[in-house]
């Protein structure tokens, strides 16, 4: 395990009330790589992902123990500013969730939240973010139309553009393609490979081909345990743990 890990989970356990959804998870995730989390439904992939931007804090009765370090700093340390953290660590959701606002207001949302409102400041960032999400050409003539009128895959890329505008350094994606058709999925995957040059990406996916195609490192989870994690190619061709083998070969359950 490299010392310069961007993200490091140390004995992280998470409880929803009395239910232990994460069990002493240890894992590291490297900078500017795509880390995929796979595993059967309900194993805790989303939960693990959401510990990173502290979205679990919003659920009443959640308790977390252990350390989640980002750039070496424990993000659960007292005094951590959660809103700043969430600007640094953006999230793309399973269903595209653009706000019921114009395309422009969606992209500028994070900026306005941070107090940046003047058009002169926002406009260049708007274009840059939309270009980075490969959306500029499709929406440049409809910036003032409702984002809800865009097709689903453009909505999802708008959600990515919305993140890029606030210049995060980590992007979390929770099954970002599950609502998209194969062509749109391909586009988002290509986009992720492009974004990887600048950002650290963590993706939850049910689609093992997707994990194999795009990720550098994969972690396999089962019932709240991190069973094994390692370089994607190695994990897929030569899993160390019996349970990973079973899952990958479809013998799970």
């Amino acid at each position: 395990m490299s010392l310069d890990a961007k993200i490091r989970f140390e004995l992280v356990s998470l409880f929803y009330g009395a239910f232990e959804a994460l069990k002493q998870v240890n894992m590291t995730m490297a900078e500017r790589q795509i880390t995929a989390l796979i595993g059967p439904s309900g194993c805790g992939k989303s939960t693990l992902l959401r510990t990173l931007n502290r979205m679990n804090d919003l659920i009443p009765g959640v308790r977390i123990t252990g350390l989640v370090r980002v750039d070496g700093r424990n993000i659960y340390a007292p005094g951590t500013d959660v809103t700043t953290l969430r600007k640094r660590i953006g999230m793309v959701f399973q269903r595209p969730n653009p706000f019921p606002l114009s395309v422009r207001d969606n992209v500028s949302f994070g900026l306005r939240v941070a107090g940046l409102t003047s058009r002169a400041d926002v406009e260049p960032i708007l274009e840059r973010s939309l270009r980075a999400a490969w959306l500029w050409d499709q929406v440049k003539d409809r910036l003032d139309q409702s984002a809800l009128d865009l097709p689903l895959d453009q909505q999802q890329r708008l959600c990515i553009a919305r993140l890029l505008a606030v210049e995060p350094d980590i992007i979390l994606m929770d099954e970002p393609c599950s609502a998209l058709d194969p062509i749109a999925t391909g586009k988002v995957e290509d986009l992720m490979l492009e974004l990887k040059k600048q950002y650290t990406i963590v993706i939850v996916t049910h689609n093992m081909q997707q994990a194999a195609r795009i990720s550098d490192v994969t972690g396999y989870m089962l019932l709240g345990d991190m069973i094994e994690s390692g370089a994607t190619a190695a994990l897929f061709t030569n899993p160390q743990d019996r349970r990973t083998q079973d899952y990958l070969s479809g013998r799970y359950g």
Partner: protein
Amino acid sequence: MKARGEKIAQRILLVIALSAISSLILIALFIFKEGTPVMLRMGLRKFLFSREWDPQAGLFGIYPMIAASLWVTLGAMLIGAPLGIAGAIFLNEFVPKTVLRIVKPAIELLAGIPSVVYGFIGVMVLAPLIRDHLGGPGLSILAAAIILGVMILPTVISISTDAIGAVPNSYREGALALGATRWQAVHMVILKAARSGIMASIILAMGRAIGDLKAARSGIMASIILAMGRAIGETMAVIMVAGNTVKLPHSVLDSARTLTATIAFEMASATGRHREALFAIGVVLFVIIMILNTCATVSLRGRTTRS
């Protein structure tokens, strides 16, 4: 056997529904039949905009009452709408869901407090306060507006709460995940998403303020009550608190008499043209409330087609 029983039940329900609807239509027709001749004879403009209301002298200008109704209603909205929306935001976004589940029905129960109770509080507590601290007779537009503003709170809170609660959680999560504070999420996204529902709540509350609660539900219902000269129910508070002067108000501290109050006061003793003029006021209210209801329905429908 079962199918037949069901058919009979259906028939019975149909007959009941039809008779309810047709009696409503009949009543509406009746009001219009009684009310329109005065307007036609005087000319609509003169009826609506002349300032003299003196039934003995045969003068039927309702402008002072329209003004009073508008002032009282606008005042009630200025007081009730911000408070109600703030309450709805607070209940939805800033306290645990269990609190909402307990408090919301409790607030809706407040709508059932007879309006005479509010009126009593207005007369005994509010009017003297206004008289002593702000001047004027106390029983005034201001007093009526405050009391009505409180009375419409349950309507505004209840419908706004529903509208805000119907905003998909994914908007909330999306906003917070971008580093928004709770309050930023509320005013930058959630209120925008709930806009049409909140608008509807305000318009419905306005209908209530101008006519009465049932009026907000159904304009026709209001007319029945008015036509029977028993608008006392919901307008009671305003009648008690607004004072009782048919004169064009010049300040919120003046007393005034609203459209509904006039009907309630005078219907019992009115005959002939005077009575017709009161029905004509009913027609005016009927039209206003129909317009408000249509607006509310349209803005609610806007919400459903949108999502």
